[in-house]
Each structure stands twice: as C-alpha cells, then as structure tokens.
C-alpha cells in the first residue's frame, strides 16, 4: 500500500457497545502494519487509539475515529457526541476518573486513559464542550522515534 498521496479512513464508534469496543483500534493497527510503519510507533498508536476508542464507548453516545496517513506523519482523530469533559486539567491527571462500576468491571476507568494517550502520542490535542462532546487529535511522527 503506497502512502505517497496520503490515506484517510473513517470508522464509526458506537457508544456503550462493549462487545465491539477495541475492534477499530485493532483494525487501525493492522492498517499501519500493512503500510509498513515502524513497529514501536504502531504500538504507541495502537495503545493511544484503544484508550480513546474505549473512552467513546464508555462516555459518549457515538463517535468517529479518523486515521490520516501522510509520508511524514499520521494522525488519529477521535470526535464524539456525548457528555464531554467538565474539567480537562483534572481529567488529564493520573488516577482521576468519573467511571461507573460497570466500566471498572470492564477493566477500565482507572483514570489512566487520557494520560496514557498523551504519553504515547508525539503531539496531543484535546478539546471538549460539556454536554456536547470531546475531540482528541493524536499525531505520530514517522521520521523520528520518541524515546519511551
């Protein structure tokens, strides 16, 4: 698969559908592997994508994940319609969580999601309107490796 002209693919995420949760990130990972991107970058992207996808499933009504690949970098944007985040600064703190008991039973909701996403991305942007939704943009550089 050539990426000279770039590639963009959109995936729909359904809120509260735990049976499918994570499947989009698995597909994204496979696409990145087919393109031949460095495995350490794929790993970081897959983790960030999975956490973001789980956030939509857990907290939003629905959302979209858009993967855009260019020769220099790729981005994973996740936009959702849902409750949004009241206090982003607080949500970015490790351990802070508004998860329900059900989410915790799924193995999530430990307050690690957003910090994990930020840690694994080369660039990370977040914006949210309470009551409307949240958008995340994660950028991964293809030329330089971020040391972890």
């Amino acid at each position, binding site marked *: 698969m050539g990426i000279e002209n770039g590639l963009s693919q959109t995936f729909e995420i359904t809120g509260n559908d735990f049976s499918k949760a*994570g499947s989009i*990130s*698995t597909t994204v990972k496979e696409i990145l592997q087919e393109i031949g991107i460095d495995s350490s970058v794929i790993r970081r992207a897959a983790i960030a994508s999975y956490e973001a996808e789980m956030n939509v499933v857990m907290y939003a009504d629905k959302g979209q994940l858009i993967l855009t690949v260019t020769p220099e970098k790729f981005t994973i944007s996740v936009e959702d319609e849902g409750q949004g985040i009241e206090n982003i600064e607080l949500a970015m703190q490790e351990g802070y969580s508004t998860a329900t008991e059900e989410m915790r039973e799924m193995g999530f909701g430990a307050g690690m999601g957003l910090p994990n996403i930020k840690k694994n991305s080369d660039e990370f942007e977040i914006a949210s309107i309470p009551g409307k939704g949240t958008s995340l943009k994660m950028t991964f550089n293809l030329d330089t490796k971020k040391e972890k």
Partner: protein
Amino acid sequence: MTLKEIKEILKAEVICGEEHLDEEIKFAGGSDLMSDVLAFGKPGILLLTGLSNAQSVRTAIIIEAKAIVYVRGKRPDKEGIKLAMEKGIPILSTQYMMYKTCGLLYSQGLPGVS
C-alpha cells in the same frame, strides 16, 4: 520458560493455542486493570489477569502479548476465545489466584516486565 512449563507449574488448562506451547516466554506482568496493562505492557509479555471479557484479549492484541493466563479459574467468553484464535494468542486458565500464580512463576525464574 516455555508455555508448556508454565502450564505445568500452574496446573493450567489450555483453552486455545495448544500449537504454541513450545514458545518461549521471557517475562510476565499481572493486572486486572486494562489501562495499567496498556501502560506497562511490552511486546512478548505473558499477561496474567483475572479479567476474562473480550477486552482482556483485545488489550493483549494491542500490546502484542505472547499469551494470556487467566487466574482463579476464570475463562474468557466465546468472543474472547474467537479473537484469540484469530490472532494466534494462546490462552491458559489456572485455578490459582493472582498472588500465587505470580509467585509460582517468579520463583521458577520468570521475571516481571521491567
């Protein structure tokens, strides 16, 4: 340590991936929190967990775990087994609880993820 040895140490049942039992496992990590697993997991890890839903298998795929051991007799659901078989991830289930499972493997020379 091979998966076969791990199976014997833990008196574990092989739920899927019998054909991968000769594979070498170099380190392991245990948690029921998938966000923690995503944060500490490294490729090739043996994942020990008590969380047996499909998310545990998806997490294992994302972090490129070598195999999963479910503790305290847990078994994955059908969706989880199907996913693991598709991706070639062997699944074992032991009756031992998390602490004992970790202790047995560690004392037999299997280190934790560093």
